[in-house]
């Protein structure tokens, strides 16, 4: 799990050079841009800078590059254009959920239909920002990170367990899948609830759906 945005490290609003500084100074937000147009990527970088977000950005424009960057670049947030030749935001979101399930996915696009918008949000996208309204982007990123801040208190293993619990798997199945004992899974469950401050499965599910860890049913 990224330790960069843990609960004690609020997003800094002053502008500092976008390099990895020591955590005590500031923590840049790692932004992965799935965008095939460099001019648009420039506008996005400009907007984030103007809004005072400290970021490190990387732009990629293919499925292969996206899949590697999700692992190697370790993004805190993904900004995705809606359609890129052979690849689209739905597939990108699916890949992100498997590899970095807690990272918010924001669609930044020139145009999108109502049907696609609705489907994206149902699939777990955090927000849609039209390129004509980029001034909204920084606030959208900040909100997305804020609502996920409780997740930074969890270990990677606990996020895995949370996902499986909210998908409806029983403790015994989760133990089997992850090669853990039932007792270990039980203690992860207890710890997850404690750290998130959510004390029942219903609450876990609603939170997990809200942050896109699992989709609503069907």
């Amino acid at each position, binding site marked *: 799990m990224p330790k960069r945005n843990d609960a004690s490290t609020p997003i800094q609003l002053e502008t500092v050079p976008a390099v990895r500084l020591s955590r005590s100074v500031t923590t840049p937000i790692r932004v992965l841009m799935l965008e095939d147009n460099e001019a648009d990527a420039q506008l996005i970088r400009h907007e984030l800078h103007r809004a005072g977000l400290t970021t490190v950005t990387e732009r990629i424009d293919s499925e292969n590059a996206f899949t590697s960057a999700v692992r190697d670049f370790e993004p805190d947030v993904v900004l995705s254009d809606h359609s890129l030749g052979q690849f689209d935001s739905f597939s990108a979101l699916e890949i992100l959920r498997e590899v970095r399930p807690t990272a918010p996915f924001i669609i930044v696009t020139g145009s*999108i*239909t*109502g*049907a696609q*918008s*609705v489907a994206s*949000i*149902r699939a777990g996208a955090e*927000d*849609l*920002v*039209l390129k004509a*309204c980029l001034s*909204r982007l920084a606030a959208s990123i900040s909100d997305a990170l804020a609502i996920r801040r*409780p997740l930074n208190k969890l270990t990677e293993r606990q996020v895995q367990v949370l996902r499986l*619990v*909210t*998908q*409806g798997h*029983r403790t015994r199945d989760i133990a089997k899948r992850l090669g853990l004992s039932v007792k270990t899974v039980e203690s992860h469950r207890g710890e997850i609830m404690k750290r*998130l*401050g*959510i004390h*029942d*499965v*219903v*609450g*876990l*599910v*609603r*939170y997990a*759906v*809200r942050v896109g860890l*699992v*989709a*609503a*049913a*069907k």
Partner: protein
Amino acid sequence: MRLVRNLPTPTSNTLRVLLLENSETDAELIARELQRSNLRAVMERVDSEEAFTAALQSFAPDIVLSDHSLAQFDSRAALEILRAVRPTAPFIIVTGAFTDVQTVAAVRAGAEDLILKASLGRLVPSISNALAVRRPLQALTERQIEVLKLVAQGYRTRDIASRLKLGIKTVESHRYAMMKRLRVHEVAGLVRYAIRVGLVPLEIGSRDRVSPA
């Protein structure tokens, strides 16, 4: 298509569409779109909060189509009223224009779909899909739907019993029957289904029992 229980027999095959719309012209376009389809629909148009609230009882709609904003009233408020009175009826926003922000907020609040008046061809497929997603709910009694909603809001069996003035055993048996009829065998699945059909909103608000610390 059999769409809802508890309707008088003669109309039980007819889809009851409540339209919240202040333009008579737009209402006619929507009516024409429904007539062109295979749906057997009756439509009633209202254009104020008062008339909307009254029609939910007197007209008993199976589905609500709502313009996004009307002078004194908007789709968000309409959806809240609908959820309290007829929690299983899908709510589709049919409007001239909406922003990205409004779209996201509407879906998180439990709206089923958003359709631009310029793309009314999407309306009938959207209605059919909305009804298909909710078909499992028709196997439930009104009481079981109430229990499902409270479960998905995070109430425990004991709280549900005292809220509905039922015995704990009765609530337990409703829960059991409801899960069996929905063919969902764990709470996580129930909650995800309740979110999908808008019985509880996706946005976790202050009025909910459950919210992250």
